[in-house]
């Protein structure tokens, strides 16, 4: 209960941070890493805490986390070497 509220606040803060980075006009590689990391962290919270996949046995958690890592990794690659 309390943990959920805490996670929610972190998600909001990370969103605000990403938004702030863009609003501040930080662009290109300087924005890429923090924004992608924030997204990764947010995704992990949703997957592990909200979807409650952490602690669930089997492949589900790793498949979903793997999806997130793969997509973000390739996005980072595509943006870095555009």
């Amino acid at each position: 209960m309390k943990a959920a509220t805490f996670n929610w606040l972190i998600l909001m803060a990370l969103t605000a941070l990403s938004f702030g980075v863009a609003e501040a006009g930080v662009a290109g590689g300087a924005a890429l890493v923090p924004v992608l990391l924030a997204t990764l962290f947010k995704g992990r919270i949703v997957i592990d805490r909200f979807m409650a996949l952490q602690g669930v046995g089997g492949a589900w958690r790793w498949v979903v986390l793997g999806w997130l890592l793969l997509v973000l990794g390739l996005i980072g690659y595509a943006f870095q070497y555009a």
Partner: protein
Amino acid sequence: MWCFILAELLVFGVFFLAYAFARTHDVELFNASQLELDRTSGFINTMLLISGSYFVVLAVHRIRHGHSRACTRWLIAAMACGAAFLVLKLVEFSGKIEAGISMSTNTFYMFYLGLGFFHFMHVVLGMVILGAVTLKAWRGGYHATDYAGVETGAAYWHMIDLVWIVLFPLIYLLN
């Protein structure tokens, strides 16, 4: 449900990567078009979906303790967030349409409108699912020992949130 969620994640994932790699062919166009977006609206929408997800977590938490009423209330709160998201999104889209922009305008807008609309329809579907769950919860259809339906609906709603969490920085922020 989970294999369906995975299939959905796969579709979105392919679309995201298609965007990222299509962008490498025309970075200028993507950056220029991206600046025309309403970033604040996207930001508020992210907050709305995250909050909706949080409320759904609380709803699951409540039903686990057998509190049907409280569960129903949190589900309604989540749907309210979803509805607000849809309204904001419609305002955003209608602004673009009035400006004469369509999926055929350029590749960036094809992705912005196409992916946005695809996600939009998912939010609608998610609300239909949450609505069905809410109705059943309100009628006392779930119990502390039997709440699989709430969890399934919640999982789908979180998936929509998760997808948006990637979509928002990708299309609105990164340039």
